[in-house]
């Protein structure tokens, strides 16, 4: 358990008894500090730099069509009709449905496949364990773009282009490595003695796994699930190449169909983008706490 909690970012600072070492620490300066003001201003400026594009996106999504060319920051009136029109005029509804199915389906699949594998890899010292983990790591290095034609060929032969299943399977395959990796680290940090105790008390190996280890590994599972979901929700390359019909494409690809060869319908484009980012933001707010511990479970002691 110790490793799991230690990795959760900067923990509480030890408030040990004030030994001689503590006294030599310089006392804080009091009063006006221009230096920290400058740092704070700088940090706020940076935060603004990181947030400005999103504000721009939301403002443009609410901008009436006749004000698109104005160089004002805020439109005279907010126009919610962009959302309604983009929904009615384009295949956005279908795209949203595809994305939901793909993200949900591949997350479920990843969980079903990676959880047993991670449990096994963390618990057993089997022959080829190192090779399995290396394989997992190496496959993360492959760029989807480089594998694109090979995958296209496979699904072309199976006659599965333009199918939701194709996207579910590829997204699951590309996110498997990360999930296995995180879950292996997480389950490995749960003491095996707990399972042994449960088995002494009479449960089977399977019961020890499902009733002792898995509940303890739940935070790791949540992290893996949400990362997979977000990553599948945001996937672009496979959706672009393996689906060619506009209503079978995921949201990220569908949105880019608003960028025509000569004109870009900015207000529609950004209204659709807002639709695409809202679920991700909600999920992110929900797991923000888990992000750090989950990401570093494997890399930091």
């Amino acid at each position: 358990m110790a490793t799991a909690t230690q990795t959760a970012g900067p923990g509480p600072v030890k408030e040990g008894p004030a030994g001689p070492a503590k006294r030599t620490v310089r006392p804080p300066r009091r009063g006006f500090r221009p230096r920290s003001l400058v740092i704070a201003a700088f940090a706020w400026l940076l935060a603004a730099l990181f947030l400005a594009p999103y504000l721009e996106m939301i403002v443009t999504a609410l901008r009436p069509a006749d004000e698109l060319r104005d160089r004002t920051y805020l439109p005279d009136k907010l126009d919610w009709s962009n959302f309604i029109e983009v929904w009615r005029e384009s295949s956005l509804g279908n795209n949203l449905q595809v994305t939901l199915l793909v993200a949900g389906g591949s997350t479920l699949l990843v969980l079903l496949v990676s959880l047993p594998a991670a449990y096994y890899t963390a618990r057993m010292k089997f022959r080829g364990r190192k090779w399995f983990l290396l394989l997992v790591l190496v496959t993360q290095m492959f760029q989807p773009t480089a594998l694109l034609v090979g995958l296209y060929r496979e699904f072309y032969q199976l006659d599965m282009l333009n199918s939701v299943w194709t996207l579910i399977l590829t997204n699951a395959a590309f996110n498997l490595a990360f999930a296995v990796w995180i879950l292996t680290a997480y389950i490995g940090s749960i003491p095996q003695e707990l399972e042994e105790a449960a088995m002494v008390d009479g449960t089977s190996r399977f019961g020890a796994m499902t009733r002792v280890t898995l509940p303890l590994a739940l935070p790791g599972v949540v992290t893996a699930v949400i990362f997979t979901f977000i990553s599948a929700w945001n996937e672009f390359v496979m959706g672009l190449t393996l689906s060619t019909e506009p209503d079978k494409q995921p949201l990220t690809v569908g949105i880019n169909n608003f960028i025509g060869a000569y004109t870009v319908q900015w207000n529609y484009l950004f209204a659709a983008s807002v639709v695409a980012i809202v679920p991700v933001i909600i999920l992110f707010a929900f797991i923000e706490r888990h992000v750090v511990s989950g990401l570093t479970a494997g890399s930091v002691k």
Partner: protein
Amino acid sequence: MRTRTRPDPSGPATQGTVPWRKLPPGDKLAFAVAVLLPPRFTPARVRADRRYRTLDKYRFIVGFLILPLAFYAVFVISPFFQAIYYSFTDWAGGATANFVGFDNYVKMWNDEKFWSSVQTSLLLLVFVPVVTLALGIFFAYMITAGGRHRRGEAVSGVVGSSFYKVVYFFPQVLSIALIAVVWQQVYSSRSGLLNGLLGEVGLGSLEQRWLGGDYKLGLFATMAVIAWSFVGFYVVLFSAAMGAIPKDIYEAALLDGAGRGATFFRVTLPLIWDTVRTGWIYMGIQALDAFAVVLIMVPGHVLKVTPVYLYERFREGQFGYATAIGVVLLVLSMAFTLIVMRIGRRETIEY
């Protein structure tokens, strides 16, 4: 490796081991179905057999690992080998694929547009990780150790550090396709945010057609977007790594009279070096890809990266040629990984 492939002959498992031929047919059947059944349905006599134990072990391996391995085989390994195979053919999407030897690679060698895309990709590969990681380390250091000294703490972060972490991390959860769309608007020369802000603060003379045609400007714009979208990930990663460094080490450094700079270069950086190296490799591979950003945001006449060039050939139906480019991309990313592993190798410091 600790697995015993052969059970100890003196062990209890050997009891009741009868040669396979002499086994009663019922037991043979029990062995055959034991693969699919939970142990409690297998007769105790069979369960005591050491062959059953071996079977049980492999059943576990098969049950738990076959699915992920199958996934890798079908969707990662197989496309990889297919890519290598089809890079030696003239496959154009139909049923026929003739073996043409190294023709695609020769064509690539003489293809100037391909080389200019490689040049752009290599520039991204070299500069983007350096810039992104440097910024990430800097922000992470500010967050974990940049604040003023407080009583009883050797190091402390700036006020509101968790807020900054969330804000910087934010682009990481968005689709890179959406990021490209948003930045296309920010860079837009007529109604873009960037030119608008420049005009606002009196730097109107710096207004540019950012993605209008100049190669260098386009390259910088691309780099900025990739760095912007990834820096938060590294801030979170590095500040977690820095937070794991025991505070005693900082206190000791402070006692020895180390300033902020010395503390950073002599204490913090060496202790998080492993994380930095991993991040460097990951970022390099991301920078080499840069597919969505360039495809969506940058007009084709300004610059192209190799994955975009590959995609265009794919769209034209030159599948054989496109796979050959894909193979070169994979070789490039592996070479990059090996080089970084090599030059980034240092003695690991345990603490």
